[in-house]
């Protein structure tokens, strides 16, 4: 069964540094998402992306965050200047259509020191 793959599985970064989290969505999917889960809390929506542009974003997704689909397969989340509170699991998801369930990757654990 096709999978969403995320790299790296664990990223350790100094506070204030930029970080890029990478995702390869399922190949024929058109809708892409980033979520995060802070330890002990809910999975929270960050952003959705369709047709090469952001379609919706949460209040968490401020100017420090950006997303990009640089080629036909990758979908990235960039945090420009990381803060301690950015430490979390970041999940990428993709969906084939508007009425299709989202399929998640196994996440990247981001640790900010």
């Amino acid at each position, binding site marked *: 069964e096709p999978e969403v793959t*995320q790299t790296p599985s664990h990223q350790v970064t100094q506070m204030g540094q930029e970080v890029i989290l990478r995702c390869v969505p399922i190949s024929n999917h058109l809708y892409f*998402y980033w979520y995060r889960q802070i330890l002990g*809390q809910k999975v929270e929506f960050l952003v959705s992306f369709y047709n090469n542009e952001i379609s919706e974003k949460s209040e968490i997704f401020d100017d420090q965050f950006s997303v990009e689909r640089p080629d036909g397969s990758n979908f990235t989340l960039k945090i420009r200047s990381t803060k301690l509170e950015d430490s979390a699991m970041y999940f990428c*998801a993709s969906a084939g259509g508007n009425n299709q369930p*989202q399929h*998640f990757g196994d996440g990247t654990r981001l640790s900010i020191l």
Partner: protein
Amino acid sequence: DQQVKQNSPSLSVQEGRISILNCDYTNSMFDYFLWYKKYPAEGPTFLISISSIKDKNEDGRFTVFLNKSAKHLSLHIVPSQPGDSAVYFCAARTSGGYQKVTFGIGTKLQVIP
């Protein structure tokens, strides 16, 4: 933000018995509901969904029931198996938009052999 609530943090069930996981929601705009299962170190895996026009959806051992008037849904697993031991997330979304999904905090199910 408590739009999707799972009030039971954990549940233990004997193998072969029924597992019932409950979920309440407050946003009356939600019209599509999903259950995800999550094993440690993995991303959420889609399990089953239900549209607000239905009150029941069944897929093998898994059945989801929706009571719109009570804003309540439940997931039944029959018979429960040790491999079902995982965290189960209730999730919901509204129609339109780009499928932003709102998650509950999860219920940890343990199926005892």
